[in-house]
């Protein structure tokens, strides 16, 4: 026997012995069907369906060894047994091979069933990272929930300038300068995915209004995964500090959105993109659904300490029902409708004591008779609540073009007393309900894998019933704020992107030389560098 044949024979004996031991062990302790399987940290390949490759394990080759080399060590068919043990092993091997071939044959007939995605695949194909990094990488409503431990994060650093910037302080002493360097978001996120459960923690640091660190996401979920590992779960029950299921833009992670910030109306309706509550959602084929109940106090990441204080016992009920389809090979279409109904809060006032007040009625700077008046104390006023609601519709079209992927999307909202971030609605104070309307249309286009251009137009009307006096007559006032936001960016796929965005803002907050409401200059631009961790 040549040395090479001797080593091959020894390897065969070792391999077959290990296989029999493993087989015996497998038969002795079969896993319970409901046991969670702990999977290593998800790499790109863990998200896509793994290729069937049982044979390397059977022959004990190291992971990554080309499977074509291992089968050569096995006989094509059972040969004459050299001993009783070898005969048993060979028979068992033959039986196992037959079973594998049978399974592979069955799998081949079900190829369409196992590879057909439950979502449009006009996105990274296959996904190149465990979590999507741009809007092109699929809808947030169709994201795959990772298994194993996934540690991720990103940093958004930017320089920004604004026409509204002044080297002055506001009435509270806060600087009005907006021309500055900024760490907009520095996020660190940990996901732990099990078969039937998942947990997520995400923290953020930024210096938008001074350095602030806070919790941005803390989710605990029970879920039933889909057969396609790249598909969202069939159903997931999530509780904690989680995303708000309303529309498309609000639910899309800040990490993937190419435009630097959400639109004006989205930030007015939802000052923050997370809230404390619970959701039940998932994907059934093309159907996407999510129903949630929340405290109704979303706060921006620049005020992390304000999060979680709900002044009302009533909760906000939100829902989004949508669909995702692929009408053509390179086209994906998705959309949904969203609802919100909840309760707002009007703060009462504390009791006041009687005071003396000087009113310099003749403006001479001297206390004259009759200018000192007594102001009697006032009793406290109780806080009150009011109802608010919003309805939204969103539509997204994904197309793979010759120069890269493209995404055209838009949303429209209407609401009542729902502005909590910009022109805060308080119908108790104003005595009338405030009707808000917002919409946007956005288009982003990859230019090869390394470039991106885009344009977004959004408009927000905070009060559809606003009036103003013009020439002595009371006339309706259009308070709509319209923003045109072109962007251009350089992308290192799944690593970094450098994006320049200019916001041309048209409002009605100034007066022109005729006294007619006109736009007050507040254009702004920012150059943002985002790098993944």
């Amino acid at each position, binding site marked *: 026997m040549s040395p090479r044949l001797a080593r091959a024979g020894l390897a065969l004996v070792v391999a077959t012995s290990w296989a029999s031991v493993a087989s015996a062990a497998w038969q002795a302790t079969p896993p319970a069907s409901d046991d969670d399987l702990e999977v290593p940290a998800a790499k790109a390949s863990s998200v896509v369906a793994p290729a069937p490759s049982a044979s390397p394990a059977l022959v004990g080759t190291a992971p990554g060894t080309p499977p074509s080399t291992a089968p050569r060590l096995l006989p094509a068919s059972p040969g004459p047994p050299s001993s009783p043990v070898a005969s048993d092993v060979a028979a068992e091997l033959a039986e196992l091979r037959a079973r594998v071939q049978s399974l592979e044959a069955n799998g081949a007939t079900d190829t369409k069933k196992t590879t057909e995605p439950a979502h449009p695949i006009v996105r990274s194909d296959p996904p190149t990272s465990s979590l999507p990094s741009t809007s092109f990488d699929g809808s947030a409503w169709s994201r795959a929930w990772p298994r194993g431990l996934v540690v991720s994060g990103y940093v958004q650093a930017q320089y920004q300038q604004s026409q509204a910037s002044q080297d002055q302080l506001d009435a509270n002493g806060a600087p009005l300068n907006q021309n500055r360097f900024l760490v907009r978001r520095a996020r660190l996120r940990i996901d732990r995915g099990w078969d039937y459960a998942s947990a997520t923690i995400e923290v953020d640091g930024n210096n938008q209004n001074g350095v602030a660190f806070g919790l941005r996401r803390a989710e605990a979920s029970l879920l039933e995964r889909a057969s396609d590992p790249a598909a969202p779960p069939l159903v997931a029950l999530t509780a904690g500090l989680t995303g708000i299921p309303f529309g498309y833009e609000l639910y899309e992670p800040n990490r993937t959105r190419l435009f630097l910030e959400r639109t004006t109306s989205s930030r007015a309706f939802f000052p923050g993109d997370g809230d404390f509550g619970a959701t039940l959602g998932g994907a059934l084929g093309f159907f996407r659904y999510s129903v949630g109940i929340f405290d109704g106090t979303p706060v921006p990441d620049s005020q992390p300490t304000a999060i979680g204080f709900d002044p009302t016992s009533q909760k906000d009920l939100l829902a989004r029902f949508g669909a995702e389809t692929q009408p053509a090979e390179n086209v994906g279409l998705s959309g949904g409708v969203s609802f919100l109904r909840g309760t707002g809060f009007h703060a009462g006032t504390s009791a006041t004591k009687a005071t003396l007040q000087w009113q310099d*009625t003749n*403006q001479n700077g001297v206390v004259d008779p009759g200018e000192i008046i007594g102001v009697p104390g006032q009793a406290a006023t109780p806080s009150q609540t009011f109802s608010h609601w919003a309805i939204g519709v969103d539509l997204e079209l994904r197309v793979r073009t010759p120069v890269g992927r493209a995404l055209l999307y838009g949303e429209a909202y209407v609401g009542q007393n729902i502005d909590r971030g910009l022109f805060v609605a308080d119908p108790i104070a104003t005595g009338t309900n405030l009707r808000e309307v917002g919409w946007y249309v956005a288009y982003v286009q990859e230019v090869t894998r390394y470039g991106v251009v885009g344009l977004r137009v959004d408009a927000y009307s905070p009060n559809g019933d606003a009036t103003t006096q013009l*020439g*002595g007559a009371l006339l309706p006032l259009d308070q709509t704020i319209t923003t045109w936001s072109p962007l251009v960016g350089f992308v290192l796929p799944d690593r970094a992107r450098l994006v320049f965005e200019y916001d*041309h803002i048209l409002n009605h907050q100034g*007066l022109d*030389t005729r*006294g007619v409401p006109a*736009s007050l200059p507040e254009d702004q631009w920012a150059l943002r560098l985002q790098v993944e961790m």
Partner: protein
Amino acid sequence: MRAGAIAGAGIAALLAVTSCAGEQTSPNTGITEPIRVETAQFVPGGLPGVPQSDAATVDGGVNPQVTDVNVANTAIEQGELGLVLSGHATTGAQAVGVRFADLGTGYWLVPVGAPDPSDDGLLTWQASADFGRNLPPGFHDLVFAAVAPDGSSGTQSDLSVCIDLPVPDNLNICVPKRKPPVAVLSLSWDQPVDLDLIVEDPSGVVVGGDLGSAQPPDAGSAANTGNGVLDHDSNRDCVIDDIDREDIVWQSTPAKGTYQVWVDLFSACGKPSVTFSVSLWLAAAQADGTQRLVQQQPPLATGIMTAVDANGGAARGLYVGDFVLR
């Protein structure tokens, strides 16, 4: 790359369209102007309309115009807050502009309000104005103009106002017939701290600081005739009034001799340091026979005190010099 170029051209075209979508106002907020009007729009440049002097030949003036201006007091303190200006404008006006004729770089535009049924349906208007702390004392004209919807404007209206001196002068600068104080010693500083001015006169009487209560400068009692009186204690006990100035006033002829001056940092109010200036103002005869307060140059003293100099009134503080009255 061709698609990228097309997209870029499209964005440029859209921006060009949107830039014409509506008139924008000036980004200048007018915060440094000598007059600032709350909730009004600042417009750089000259006030529209025809000056009153040029329109004198036109009987009744050219519309639209401001017909009347109401103000509680035409004597304005430097840094005065919330002076209410109001009045009427002819029908057809859409806004009223206001500025100083000889100060500032632009005007403020206020929309007119409802018609006044008690005044022939003229349109009402109202503005609340703040004034800068560095306005030059003396008489200045506030000029008003009404603006029509087409941007045209008629005859301007003038209102003469008087900016008072920063030190107590019995309003002499606005009403020269009123006699000013004989002398005023003034301390001013640049930070919201509790700083006190202390003077010891030739007879040994100490005025100011935490050593005696402040009295109005024109109290007129026999006890203070010829003696200096502290007009007020600015930022007393760190209750910040932002006046940052206090004065010792001699309404009648003070005793002749040498006056010694101290500046005492009672409390730094959390500030690390403060820069101060002490100046002497004396009444001087004018050519028309009246008198006017004139600031003596150079200032008696200028200096810096730091937080460690704060003594809570335990001593007179920093001796800054003396002056002689003859």
